[in-house]
């Protein structure tokens, strides 16, 4: 009996990895999804975008990199599809140089699918260092920070940018956050200039963003794979996030079961001693 509980309390980590691997692989292979109701904070984000008038400018900030790609890249593609479907104009920039090419790849892919033209329907500004300073200066004049797009083309020669000078001309900012840049957007963009913000974040960052949502500083919050799956349901474009939620749920159940087993083993051993 003691041996059994000892084994239970000290399961080899490689066995746990194997169980986790199998638990992720099987749901992904079977591709069985299940029904769930999108969260209110995600619905708010979706509804706000739905109500934006055609031709409104939406700024997208890419503040993540390859390490957060599985969580945020599929969501970025769905959000871009939604924005282009509603004929909104997209201005993409970012504060994480390693992530900007990911943003550009998604933007070009979805723009091609939706027959959108560079310079008229979307523009890619690129990167400037100095997060807070960049956000503050764009509130006065975007050209003060980005005098050209990523190809070096002056902003005044781009039709989409002709009448866009600062946050007064931006209907919404959507920040894709894997770190603290979302805080800067809220603290400088929203608090000082009244910029309307939707935050989409990795699951690690999401708990830090809820106070902003609760205080009404951001309109909507799309957090982690769950948020992405919710948004896929709302946009009616079920993809990776929706499929991944089954695997996510199975893994959570297994983690809880393993914690329980470990605790049973620990307490049983303590009693036997």
């Amino acid at each position: 009996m003691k041996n059994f509980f000892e084994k239970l309390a000290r399961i080899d980590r490689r066995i746990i990895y194997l169980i986790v691997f199998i638990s992720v692989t099987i749901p992904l292979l079977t591709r069985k999804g299940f029904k769930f109701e999108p969260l209110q904070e995600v619905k708010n984000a979706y509804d706000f975008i739905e109500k934006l008038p055609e031709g409104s400018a939406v700024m997208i900030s890419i503040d993540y990199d390859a390490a957060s790609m599985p969580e945020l890249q599929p969501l970025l593609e769905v959000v871009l599809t939604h924005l282009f479907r509603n004929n909104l104009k997209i201005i993409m920039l970012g504060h994480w140089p390693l992530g900007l090419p990911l943003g550009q790849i998604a933007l070009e892919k979805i723009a091609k699918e939706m027959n959108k033209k560079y310079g008229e329907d979307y523009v890619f500004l690129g990167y400037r260092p100095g997060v807070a300073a960049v956000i503050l200066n764009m509130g006065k004049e975007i050209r003060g920070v980005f005098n050209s797009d990523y190809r070096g083309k002056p902003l005044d020669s781009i039709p989409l940018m002709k009448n866009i000078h600062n946050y007064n001309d931006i209907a919404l900012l959507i920040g894709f956050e894997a770190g603290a840049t979302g805080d800067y957007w809220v603290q400088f963009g929203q608090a000082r200039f009244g910029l309307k913000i939707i935050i989409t974040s990795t699951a690690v960052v999401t708990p830090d963003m809820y106070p902003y949502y609760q205080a009404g500083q951001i309109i909507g919050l799309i957090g982690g794979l769950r948020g992405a799956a919710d948004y896929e349901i709302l946009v009616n474009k079920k993809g990776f996030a929706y499929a991944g939620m089954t695997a996510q749920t199975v893994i959570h159940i297994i983690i809880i079961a393993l914690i329980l087993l470990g605790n049973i083993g620990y307490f049983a051993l303590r009693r036997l001693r």
Partner: protein
Amino acid sequence: MIDLIFMWIAAGLTLAIFSFLYKDNPFYKLAEHIYVGSAAAFWFLYLWFFDVEPKILTPFKPLFKEYGFFKMFLHFGPEQWILFIPITLSIFMLLRFIPPSAWLSRWSIAFLVGMAAGLGITGSLQGYVIPQIQGTLLPLYTGDLLGSFNNIIIIIATVTTLIYFFFSKEHKGPLGILAKIGITFIMIAFGASFGYTVMARVSLLIGRIHFLLFEWLSFLFR
């Protein structure tokens, strides 16, 4: 063809990283070094093409082309002269590598610290502290039971958590009870945060396995 090569590289590197789960090995180390090296190179290129070139070099280019290096200084306008401030501060920062003149870098650091403190204080007050206080001043009765309960929880959690961080008096008696309630809320917050962290890590795993199964392996068996 190029996509195929990159897919194989990505799959190989993913498997090399996964091999660490068994134990530390040269494949993992190779993948780790490739990631760090390529990230550093990428940072350098991005800073050059998106910052140094457009913000520092481009304003000088037309004058340099027209008048040459020495005569261009006679034709500088305010746009060019003002750039000498960041250029000088940048050079000062690099002087840290030359010990006799390393002290000059303190000017750049002083500028950075001052700017960061100024931005941080105003940003935190205007964008965090005041809106969050406003967000906590909630009615105890909203008309619906769930909303009222939610508001009461937020208020109790905020007040008791603040009491937990009040160290000027020993946590005994009513203060001790309130501090204990506060630490319970803090633990719940940590638990929620940890739960989200687990979800994030599992999402990354799902992403990689999805890539291996549906992009790499499905290509192999096509």
